[in-house]
């Protein structure tokens, strides 16, 4: 059973192992390693990139690409920085509008690709520019006003969450004790990933996303809903990206329409997808795997802090990790016996 899972998910397994090694070593080297404080801080810094990586994965699974994920995340963060405050009702409404905006952006990408017949690269590059423009309109200067309680509750441990909102006897309830040290961001991240992606994977449309990336012709002959799946993929991409934006705004209590940062997130999303073992040509891999890929990227950046490496080297290492990861997978090219198969 485990043997088969390993055979089918070798990339994912390697990613998990790599992450485990990196993370444990990091904690061993850290002066306050294995402490709740460090875990909470690490988790907080991983959420946005994790969501953006998940967003990128869905189009990549069907052999597409979404170059607007960073921009959509930025737009969502800016919307959230304006709307997520006030009464509880207003906060919920604000969060809803934030997620809706990102999701509709993804839906629009899907329509452009399916019915506008524009190549995904160009379409998402252009809609990415539009998203950044809208973000700048909403938030010309960095800043914002996000509900402080919410920010505190969502960026700390379960105990802090319960304490903030007076739930479970202020976090002292006996049944809660085994969980009090788990960071809320981790729960949010994996919770949304599992609650949204796992069910979708188990629908015909969700399965079609994989089928398109694997063999679009066979998917068509088998009568699978190709157009619906493509639109769903980009819509999901927008949804995950806006989750990342919403969390980023809550975490930093502000929004920042930073074009360079948006570009960096898009790049890192691709790197995370590759690290997680999802095939760039589509067909195999998954959202959870990319989440692990994103965690690897983040842990690498944590090393900069504890090893006192010049943070200026960070982009260099990021780029080298991406190039190394994609080149690693290119070995297959040399084992192809019929060179015509090189040309898709």
């Amino acid at each position, binding site marked *: 059973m485990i043997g088969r899972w390993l055979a089918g998910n070798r990339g994912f397994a390697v990613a998990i192992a790599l992450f485990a090694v990196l993370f444990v070593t990091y904690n061993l080297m850290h002066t306050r390693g294995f402490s709740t404080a460090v875990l909470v801080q690490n988790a907080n810094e991983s959420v946005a990139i994790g969501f953006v990586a998940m967003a990128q994965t869905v189009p990549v699974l069907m052999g597409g690409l979404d170059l607007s994920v960073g921009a959509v995340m930025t737009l969502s963060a800016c919307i959230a920085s304006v709307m997520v405050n006030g009464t509880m009702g207003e906060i919920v409404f604000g969060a809803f509008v934030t997620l809706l905006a990102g999701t509709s952006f993804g839906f629009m990408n899907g329509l452009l690709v399916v019915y*506008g017949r524009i190549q995904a690269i160009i379409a998402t590059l*252009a809609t990415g520019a539009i998203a950044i423009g809208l973000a700048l309109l909403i938030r010309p200067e960095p800043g914002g006003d996000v509900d402080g309680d919410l920010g505190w509750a969502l960026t700390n441990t379960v105990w802090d969450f319960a304490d903030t909102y007076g739930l479970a006897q202020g976090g002292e309830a006996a049944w809660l004790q085994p969980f009090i040290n788990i960071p809320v961001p981790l729960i949010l991240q994996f919770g949304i990933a599992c609650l949204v992606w796992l069910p979708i994977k188990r629908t015909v449309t969700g399965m079609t996303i994989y089928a398109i990336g694997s063999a679009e012709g066979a998917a068509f002959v088998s009568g699978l809903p190709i157009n619906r799946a493509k639109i769903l993929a980009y819509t999901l991409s927008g949804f995950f990206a806006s989750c990342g934006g919403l969390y980023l705004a809550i975490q930093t209590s502000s929004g920042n329409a930073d074009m360079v940062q948006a570009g960096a997130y898009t790049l890192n999303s691709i790197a995370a997808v590759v690290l997680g073992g999802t095939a760039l040509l589509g067909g195999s891999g998954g959202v959870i795997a990319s989440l692990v890929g994103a965690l690897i990227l983040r842990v690498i950046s944590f090393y900069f802090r504890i090893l006192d490496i010049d943070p200026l080297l960070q982009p260099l290492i990021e780029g080298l990790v991406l190039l190394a990861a994609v080149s690693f997978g290119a070995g297959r090219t040399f084992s192809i016996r019929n060179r015509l198969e090189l040309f898709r």
Partner: protein
Amino acid sequence: MSRLGTLSAADRPLVIAFGFILVILAVGTVYTLSTTGTMPLLTPKYLLLQLQTGSFLGICAAGLMAVILIGHIDLSIPWTLTAAAMIGTAVGGPGAVPAALAVGLCVGLINGLGVAVLRIPSMIFTLGLDTVLRGLMVAQTGGYAPQDAATPLMLTLAKSSILGFPAALFVWAAVSVAVAFLLSRTTFGRALYAIGTRERAAYLSGMRTTRVIIGAFVLSGLCAALAGALLAGYSAKAYQGMGNAFLLPAIAAVVLGGTNVLGGRGRYAGTLIGVVLIVLLNSVLSIMQMPEALRQIIYGSVIIGMLLIYGRGDRVTS
């Protein structure tokens, strides 16, 4: 519309783009007439100035077109341009421009090998190399603008004027003539179209497809590097992120000029028109003092809108 229908499919984007240039000029002129009562957009001096700043974009787009023609893309342009400018100014003296071009050559070679030999999707590989270059430059300069100044040759090429025309325009014109010649009259150029149309058939026709793909990326790298050297001359120095504003406009110029993103189709004249369109769109937006936010939105909308129009035409004919 009936006149458009009689045009050949290859010419339609050129005509639509050209029409859109006239629309931009008209809108801009109406705006300036109504606000200041002048029409600077239609004066040769102003247009030449715009084209001078547009020449950097034009040179980038010329090289990028070769890559897009084979159905690939070069996302490493921003930091190829910046790295070339920084290394060029750091080397200084008579070796400055050759050093910059050498950077472009190396980047192009690496991109070409990654795409043609390792067969990694160009989008990913060039994006990764772009980040590596950024990392190298940031590490080298400490994240600040380097102190080195542009060399006299860079300054001359970018800023001086010859016979009343900016020298940068002559450089752009020279690159244009060279690329147009390369595309239409050489075996390399024709192989680009063949590979972009059907790499398998090109390979089975006995073309050296690997070398041609590497060549296209080298051309793109060289053009970006040359643009970097010129831009350093224009600004008198190299600086962080100087290439960031060139990638999307360069892609837009090539695509709006009618080059098929999937490769195989496109004329250099179209890319020229695309560059002029983008440059004029930019200058009209700055005359209108359009904030950056609206600029980005208009930018994205124009690209999508025009591609939708091109696509409609395609479907009617097919």
